[in-house]
């Protein structure tokens, strides 16, 4: 492309326009080229990681069972006011749904779904479905004769409420609340509360673990930062080796350390601190979870803290001392404030990792050392209440992403440094 230059060395307006357009085009090409490099991984992560999580989270509000497997009842109840038992037509629709549902083996899905909302709904529905095919009209009294539950207006209110495409009932359950038959949402009595309590316990234990990693990690990082590099690198291996060792290996070794006949109890008995009869119970409870997780997460505290402390010039402390500060004042007023970014980076990293833990609490936590992750796993694999698992997952995810947002503000994600 040739550019004619005017006599005074200026470009003509057309030339200028063309040059700008060229520049834009080349910049766009560069942008596209940069994007093409990123695109494969972006697409890969979207398909293999983000889409699975998004679809799972959708399950926390997704509610197709009743509307799909009891379509006639759903339609019949649409106009129902909810102040008296439904009419004969609705009962006829119910009998039709139960008969077809039993034939297609789908009625159990609707029954299971409704059983989350009201106990004994499953036996009510499957028990009636077994006899539904033999019924002849008029149905209303005959159905109520098979199972009294159909004469209860609340049964119908629950069916109507859960025949919508989306539901909030999994979140209601996850927040330890209950929808009353009249539609009012109330908090469960204290004794029946599970999930909110477990959430608080997870947060509280994660905070405790974070605090312990700060208390144990700070002196070690300080020592590492103030030793000559060669010695520091040697000692750093003691931090990095656990970091690189399998999580399951570390959990296993803590079982060997902490159990009744374990190394620590044996040692305490041998010294004579503890009698052979009353060995300490340090595992399969909250203590076991806290000790093991503190050990597993300690390197995540030491490494960022150490990398910040390395940048604090030792001369500042000496200057403070020479100006008359006591060792404590010099540390508290000069060193500590400069190490705060390291503490906050490490603490938030440890806290985020701790709050989502599942494996370690499951193996060494017993009853009292379980985390919210264990409850999600239980509803995924044990009770198969996937909607509730999804609702708890959303709550955990919101919590983690919220804290990560704060972390990002504080340190910036490109400064995550490990090893």
């Amino acid at each position, binding site marked *: 492309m040739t550019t004619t230059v005017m006599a005074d060395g200026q470009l003509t307006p057309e030339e200028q326009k063309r040059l700008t357009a060229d520049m834009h085009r080349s910049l766009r090409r560069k*942008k596209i*080229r*940069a994007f*093409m*490099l*990123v*695109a*494969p*991984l*972006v697409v*890969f*992560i979207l398909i*293999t*990681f*983000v889409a*699975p999580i998004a*679809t*799972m989270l959708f*399950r926390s509000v997704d509610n197709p069972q009743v509307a799909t497997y009891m379509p006639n009842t759903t339609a019949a109840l649409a106009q129902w006011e909810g102040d008296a038992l439904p009419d004969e037509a609705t009962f006829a629709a119910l009998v039709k749904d139960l008969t077809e549902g039993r034939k297609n083996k789908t009625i159990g899905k609707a029954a299971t779904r409704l059983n989350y909302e009201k106990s004994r709904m499953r036996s009510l529905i499957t028990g009636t479905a077994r006899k539904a095919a033999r019924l002849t009209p008029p149905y209303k009294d005959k159905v109520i004769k098979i199972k009294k539950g159909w004469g209860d207006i609340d049964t119908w209110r629950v069916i109507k409420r859960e025949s919508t495409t989306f539901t909030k009932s999994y979140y209601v359950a996850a927040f330890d609340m209950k929808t009353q038959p009249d539609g009012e949402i109330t908090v469960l009595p204290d004794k029946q509360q599970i999930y909110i309590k477990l959430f608080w316990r997870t947060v509280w234990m994660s905070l405790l673990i974070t605090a312990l990693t700060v208390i*144990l990690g700070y002196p*070690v990082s300080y020592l590492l930062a103030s*030793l000559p590099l060669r010695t520091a690198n040697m000692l750093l*291996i*003691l*931090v*990095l*080796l*656990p970091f*690189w*060792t*399998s*999580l*399951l*290996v*570390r*959990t*296993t*070794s803590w079982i*060997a*350390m902490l159990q009744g*006949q374990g*190394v620590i109890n*044996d040692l305490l008995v041998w010294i004579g601190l503890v009698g052979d009869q009353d060995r300490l119970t340090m595992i399969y409870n909250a203590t076991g979870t806290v000790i093991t997780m503190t050990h597993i997460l*300690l*390197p995540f505290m030491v490494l960022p803290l150490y990398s910040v402390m390395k940048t604090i010039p030792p001369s500042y402390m000496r200057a403070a001392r020479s100006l008359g500060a006591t060792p404590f004042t010099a540390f508290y007023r000069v060193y500590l404030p400069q190490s705060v970014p390291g503490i906050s980076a490490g603490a938030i990293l440890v806290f*985020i990792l701790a*709050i989502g*833990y*599942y*494996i370690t609490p499951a*193996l060494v936590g017993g009853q009292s050392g379980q985390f919210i992750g264990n409850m999600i*796993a239980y509803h*995924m694999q044990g009770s198969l209440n*996937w909607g509730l698992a999804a609702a708890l997952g959303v709550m*955990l995810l919101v919590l*983690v992403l919220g804290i*990560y947002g704060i972390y990002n503000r504080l340190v910036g*994600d*490109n400064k995550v440094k490990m*090893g």
Partner: protein
Amino acid sequence: MALPSYAGPLETIWYYLFRVICALVFIFLISPLIVIIPLSFNVEPYFSFTEGMLALDPEAYSLRWYEEFLNSERWMASIKNTFIVAAFSTVLSMVLGTLAALGLSRSELPYKGLIMGLLISPMIVPLIIAAAGMFFFYSWMGVSQSYLGLILAHTALGTPFVVITVTATLTGFDQNLVKAAESLGASPTYAFFKITVPLIMTGVISGGLFALMTSVDEVIVAIFIAGAEQRTVPMQMWSGIREQISPTILAVATLLVAMSILLLTTVEYLRRRSENIRGISSH
């Protein structure tokens, strides 16, 4: 940090006390890994030291659990599975992660923060949530209970490490080197393989080792999406610890500690080499 000459008696006491505290923390960090080594040679089927072991009686030690491990078809199959899954997912993570890091390091890339957030999300999101999601989605895609599914999942979990380490290597990277090569007549491809690749290689490899370790150690996603056919070493350990806890697990654990020593040494070697090449001293 030598004790200053002007230190008073209190400060002297604190100086030594502080070192004792640090020593205790180091013991806390390392003792669990040390303890399992002798226990794995226990002749008895216990997880604790027997009197004979403490008396250093050779009779009390044996290779029994290592034999059991080597003769167990289940363990051997799980090693093979772990190896297959880790090898493929590490290579995939390295390729995808390195390409992405090269793109991320270009100043022209729009929405950089958003993309970076997306790419490192597998490191932030609790694994139990990811595993639950993959449980449904992968079976819908028809890849659950298959090697492919597990490889895809582990690749997703491993890429953030490659992205982070390679991006870090590229921050000290002088783009003028590439321009110089091109001005001397090198084609962009030639310049990439002759200049860029050798300089970022250490980052790629240490990111790859992180990804390898992630795959070798990953159990949550594996429990949710792998079938009995794909049973990996961590899955075997997980069920071993939950069901019948036998010292065979300690033997495996000891071998895994040996492996992490090897990995750690490699990563440290690479890190120092990278610092030397790029002329960045560690201080």
